[in-house]
């Protein structure tokens, strides 16, 4: 009778054998190749931060052979990039919507190196967050924090749970503290946008801002509920804010019924979903409250 340990060991090795057919090595930077996962037929998802070049990208296939890859799109905000490659059998595992991962479950990170083939790292899921904004300004449905060791080659690799579900893409580029998995749901959303447009469009207002404290007397007089507002310290020429009549010195207190007290409160306006929408801005100008209508634009490339 096989011990539980031997049985687990065997299951892990079998998962590696199964998934390694869809994991490639990605050569897009000097020294350390990264990894990539065939997410849809002929489409490889990798970690955007591991691409230091956009031309002459190559991948090492499971057969050991090298193949050329073309960049289909990249989004630094979510650390996702898409490559198009020929010569791979269609993926066995579809990058579908898995139910949310649970903290404490075992997770395997699977990458590929051109020297030694598939490589694996084992850990547990340390935590699963709610909706999250990355330090690069992108939006993730959630992140999955891993305690598995990520080696230089691991970013872009597949994160698999012990039930054999593809949870997402491993990356060391979104957190200084831990390796994360970009969840399958985010990968799918970003992949759709990248395949359609080559990039993920970002909403944009065209202002530089700074938080300011609203004096009590003004708060009572106007009145506004905010302790703080966001003051405009620069207005981009021909940007959405300038076209709406925003002036230097205006203090935003709300935008589209969202109270603005901290810079982070503005971040939801960089989502692609609001592009083209008209939003009402409540501003304090020269001691009085005014309303302006701003049509959210798309961030220029």
């Amino acid at each position, binding site marked *: 009778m096989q011990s539980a*340990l031997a049985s687990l*060991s065997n299951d892990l090795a079998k998962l590696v054998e199964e998934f390694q057919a869809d994991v490639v090595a990605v050569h897009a930077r000097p020294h350390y190749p990264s990894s990539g996962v065939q997410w849809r037929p002929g489409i490889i998802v990798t970690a955007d931060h591991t691409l230091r070049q956009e031309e002459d990208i190559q991948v090492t296939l499971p057969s050991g052979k090298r193949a050329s890859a073309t960049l289909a799109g990249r989004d630094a905000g979510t650390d996702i990039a898409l490559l198009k490659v020929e010569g791979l059998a269609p993926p066995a595992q579809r990058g579908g919507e898995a139910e949310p991962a649970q903290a404490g479950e075992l997770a395997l990170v699977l990458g590929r190196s051109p020297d030694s*083939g598939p490589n694996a*790292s*084992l850990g547990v899921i340390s935590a699963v967050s709610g909706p999250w904004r990355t330090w690069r300004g992108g939006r993730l449905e959630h992140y999955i924090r891993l305690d598995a*060791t990520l*080696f230089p080659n691991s970013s872009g690799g597949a994160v698999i749970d012990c039930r054999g579900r593809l949870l997402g893409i491993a990356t060391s580029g979104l957190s200084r503290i831990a390796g994360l998995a970009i969840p399958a749901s985010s990968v799918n959303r970003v992949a759709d946008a990248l395949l359609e447009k080559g990039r993920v469009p970002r909403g944009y207002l065209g202002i530089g801002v700074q938080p300011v404290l609203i004096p009590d007397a003004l708060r009572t007089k106007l009145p506004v509920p905010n302790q703080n507002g966001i003051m405009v310290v620069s207005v981009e020429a021909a940007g959405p804010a300038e076209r709406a009549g925003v002036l230097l010195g205006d203090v935003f207190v709300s935008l589209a019924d969202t109270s603005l007290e901290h810079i982070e409160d503005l971040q939801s306006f960089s989502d692609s979903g609001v592009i083209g929408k008209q939003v009402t801005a409540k501003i304090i100008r020269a001691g009085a409250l005014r309303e302006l209508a701003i049509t959210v634009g798309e961030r220029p490339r």
Partner: protein
Amino acid sequence: MRVEGFGQVADQLRRSTVQVGLGGRGLGSGIIVDQDGAIVTNAHVAGHAPLSVHLWDGSSFPARVQARSTRRDLAVLRIPTTHLTPVTMANSDDVRVGELVIAVGNPFGFVGAVTTGIVHAIGRRPGLGPTRWIQADVQLAPGNSGGPLADARGRVIGVNTLVAGGLGLAVPANAVARLLAGDFAQAPLGVVVQPASVRVEGAERLGLAIIEVVEGGAAEFASLRAGDVLVGVDGRPLRTLDDLEGALESGGERVLRLQFLRDDPSRLRTVSVRLGVPQAAVA
């Protein structure tokens, strides 16, 4: 259902793991591979003398180096005792990426320390040449060298040898089996040598002085004798201790031309030695 955790596997392995030392100082670890005192360790651990081996039960023995492979960094030691508990060796060709592994050894002077992880990769390591390594994400430290890397069933799949890139690298068990199966009672050449500095044609060079010629060996058949100093192989001067071993390891039946000095240091002699010929064929 009885569930065996790593604890039981670790206990078993510890009994077959030894500490290799020099005087009172620990140098590394070793693995008991037969009940009559054969210990496998790294060549770099066994590169000193006099060596002692400390067993799990606290007993200690002097150790003699019986065989070395500097290329694979392995050595076989012999200690004068019997009724030891050897490990079971696995076929390392069957090891798969993802398998659970356990390493036992003597890092930082801790005796019988255990670390676990999984096999990260199997194959070449960039910058470490063409040799195959079993690479595992186990936490190794100096003192683990020469100790066992085992699978979830406690069978040894490799000898922990070095740390690179956050991974523990082990020489696969099959390489160990080849060293053990080789006739290590006598080296392929059949000589025991000691490095010496010699003058050849006016220049200081490395020589290997023959201390003993093994009876029935290829060197005896070629009429080499104790006192001869080997200085070259196939026309190339010996530059490092590995040069001779490297030439011998090429395997197969062939003729090796050795340059040597005998009595007269100004006269460089050459002898052709036939290697790889079974003893029975030597008349």
